[in-house]
């Protein structure tokens, strides 16, 4: 990037909002999992019109622009593949409006999800999407990736809470999509096309969110099973009893062992699976739900369970689950993480397949995740050696093949980015991919916005 161009960009966003030194730029060359190229420039725009100016310049001078929130993504979405400008939204972080009457809020993309959740809580309101990174990830990033989380069985994913957007198109036009109302059919649903587009179709500059009343209380149950099949039958049993828990987290045998070793909470030996269940609502209905769940646990062969209505004690029950992500690194230094989803009833089939695979390849494979919606995080733990990488690659292909065969999908909430783009054609047909590529070209004729993401490398833009 030549200095005249850099000066122009500094003029647009202000000198203080541009990082030039290599050390600083380097910090923006990776996300929570992927390493990419060091950008030529890192900028912190303060408004949609600044974003628009920079994008127009990018079209004119043909440099890539990569939108980024906190960089907590796990598929490389916020990382450049070849220099350019990383556009960080942490300085557009105002909550513009919380409208209690209409149960909506308007935010800038850089607002931290957790901080927003805490703020609306003060008004007795609730913004449910809770990706594991919600304490530091931004809402803009959540929208771009269509993030989910443990409570999406009952409450849905980010998509279900985005009513409208202000976005800047790759060519610089600022447009508004969607509505402020609960219902609205006004032409094609561009809002949902943008949600989950991983920063490749537009830059999100403002978000209208739907809120719901905050549930009064909750109960947390930690349940142990000898066999994974029993846990799965239990999940089905609960749902068939017309109870929709807010959370139904699952850990397989390998995960249970790994977590217990790192941070023992007295999980019974021989535990083959664990469920963490939360029900919420008003006090009476929470009690009623728990009373219905307990006989099901007993009937479906739970070996032991713990229960609390106290939010503080609930933290203790969450410990095993919360410990796990970090603890996996005790097994091996590198994590290849997948985010597959299968129809709920197919969970045991997939888990057994993973156990076989782990044994065959002789590498630890752990799976844990959201049993309610069938979304699993599969962690393949390897050493940073070519032989292990080869094994991991083989495992991933096998896992995806099995997932698709079971009627599932290869990514539930993490997106495709750069890390999964080589596999996307295992799930999507050629026609579907071509249609998506055409849409990309329509919006971004010069391919300047977050290039190299989602599509397989053989597709040229």
């Amino acid at each position: 990037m030549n200095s005249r161009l850099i000066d122009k960009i500094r003029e647009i966003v202000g000198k203080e909002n541009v990082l030039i030194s290599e050390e600083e730029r380097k910090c923006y060359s990776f996300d929570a999992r992927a390493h990419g190229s060091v950008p030529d420039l890192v900028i912190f725009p303060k408004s949609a019109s600044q974003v628009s100016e920079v994008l127009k310049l990018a079209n004119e001078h043909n440099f890539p622009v990569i939108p980024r929130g906190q960089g907590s993504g796990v598929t490389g979405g916020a990382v450049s593949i070849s220099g350019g400008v990383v556009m960080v939204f942490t300085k557009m972080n105002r909550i513009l409006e919380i409208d209690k009457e209409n149960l909506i809020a308007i935010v800038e993309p850089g607002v931290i999800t957790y901080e927003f959740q805490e703020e609306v809580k003060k008004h007795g309101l609730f913004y449910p999407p809770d990706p594991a990174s919600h304490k530091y990830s931004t809402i803009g990033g959540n929208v771009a990736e269509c993030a989910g989380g443990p409570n999406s069985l009952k409450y849905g994913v980010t998509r279900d809470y985005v009513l409208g957007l202000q976005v800047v198109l790759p060519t610089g036009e600022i447009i508004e999509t969607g509505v402020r109302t609960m219902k609205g059919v006004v032409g094609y649903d561009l809002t949902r096309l943008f949600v989950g587009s991983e920063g490749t179709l537009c830059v999100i500059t403002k978000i209208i969110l739907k809120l719901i009343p905050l549930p009064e209380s909750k109960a947390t149950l930690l349940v142990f099973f000898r066999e994974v099949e029993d846990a799965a039958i239990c999940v089905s049993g609960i749902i068939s009893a017309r109870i929709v828990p807010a959370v139904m987290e699952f850990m397989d045998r390998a995960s249970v062992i790994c977590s217990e070793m790192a941070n023992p909470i007295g999980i019974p030996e021989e535990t083959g699976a664990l469920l963490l269940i939360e029900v919420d609502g008003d006090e009476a209905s929470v009690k009623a739900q728990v009373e219905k769940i307990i006989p099901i646990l007993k009937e479906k062969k739970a070996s032991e369970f713990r229960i609390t209505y106290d939010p503080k004690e609930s933290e203790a029950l969450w410990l095993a689950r919360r410990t796990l992500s970090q603890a996996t690194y005790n097994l091996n230094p590198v994590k290849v993480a997948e985010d597959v989803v299968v129809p709920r009833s197919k969970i045991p089939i997939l888990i057994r397949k993973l156990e076989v695979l782990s044994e065959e390849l002789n590498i630890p494979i752990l799976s844990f995740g959201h049993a309610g919606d069938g979304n699993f995080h599969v962690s393949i733990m390897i050493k940073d050696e070519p032989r292990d990488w080869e094994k991991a690659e083989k495992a991933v292909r096998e896992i995806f093949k099995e997932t698709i065969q079971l009627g599932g999908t290869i990514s539930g909430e993490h997106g495709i980015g750069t890390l999964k783009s080589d596999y996307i054609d295992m799930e999507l047909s050629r026609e579907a991919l071509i249609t998506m590529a055409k849409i990309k070209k329509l919006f971004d004729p010069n391919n300047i916005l977050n290039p190299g993401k989602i599509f397989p490398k053989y597709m040229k833009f």
Partner: protein
Amino acid sequence: MIKTAVIEELKKIVGEGEVLTTKEALKAYSYDGTTNWIREPDVVVFPKNTIQISEILKVANREKVPVTPRGGGTNVSGGSVPWMGGIVLCTTKMNNILKIDKENLTCTVECGVVLQDLNNALLKEGLFFPPDPQSFLGATIGGIIAENAGGPACVKYGVTKQYVLGLEVVLPTGEVVNLGGRTLKNVVGYDLLHLFISSEGTLGVITKAELKLNPLPPSRKTIVAVYDDVTKAGETVFRVLENGVIPGKIELLDNWVINRIEEMMPMGLPRDADAMLLFECDGIDEAVQKETEKVVDISKKYGATDVRVAKDTDEANRYWMARRAGFAAVFGKAKTVLSEDVTVPRGKIPDLIKKSKEIAKKYGLELVMLGHAGDGNLHPSFLTDISNKEHYEKATKAMEEIIYAAVELGGVLSGEHGIGLEKQKFFTRVTDPKVVDLMKKIKALLDPNNIMNPGKIWE
């Protein structure tokens, strides 16, 4: 006019018996749930499977013949009217429920399945498909998805969009694509699935759908709140929600509707009331009990003159039958009814009602107000007569003012009926030209010869 050779080709694809060209048949497929727009097609075809639809579209695309997909034809914004003639592709013979998956709470259906038939089948399994357009006796799943239909239950359960997991779609050029999947989460590539939902048959033909289902709530209760001022009813709606109660349904009926229903089938509704709200709380027993108490308290607090809780299912059913009869009551009373589908943020319901009343008064018209107050979606209606030019023009003008008032209040033109033919002129006026342009480009991308349902949304 379509060439005879093309009709012959269509006959080869679907079979002689599945192609209609008689005058009477064409007339029968020339209008939708209203009779405000009439245009006869050249031919009506009844495909039986996806491959046939693909073949039909290939022929149409080659010959540049318009194709208008149609389910039950119950829609009310002109979406299924063949505005440019050509082929009406009627999906009613693709009406198989392919699978009900009780374990995963999903089902797979062909596009022509009628909603009522689906819900009857689901009932046996203790399940239901929440979106409940009031045309459920005739509306098909394909049409419901194409229009992103809603209904009373959407205040709690959301609209059709939230219940479609996957679609099989035939593109205008004949390719068959599968979008989405069978799971609750899916972020693989762009969300084309939601681009097709609510595209009003302009981007392709929906042939198969994977739907998300809910377990039937074990318990429900109906509450009637009566008001001497319709704006107080409007306020109660958002006060209830603000207090953390989301009932399964909240419907509003005004004095006019109450009286017409009483004339049609006397059931003891308060005839002198300015408006009434009809609530339904559903869920597990304990929660329903508590919610009902809250709704009763809040209704009283915000000015209800009388609040009743239905004693039993019989009484509850009577009230809901009355609500369903509401539209019939309106349509039965005038030659032409102008009925809108505006949606405002819930807190603005009283403002919209006030404003609508002022407008009606200004033009000397009788206003009817009913709708899904819970999500801010109201159907203000004027009774008029299209053959009485002066009156009809007055009504049209007044309705325009109501629409603009709704948009000014932060609302939208259409909550659940779609743009179709009816709202075109408003759509282009209230939508940013850049946005319209983008939508047109997407349309051109997928349908280069503009054969799919031409003349709709913006033309």
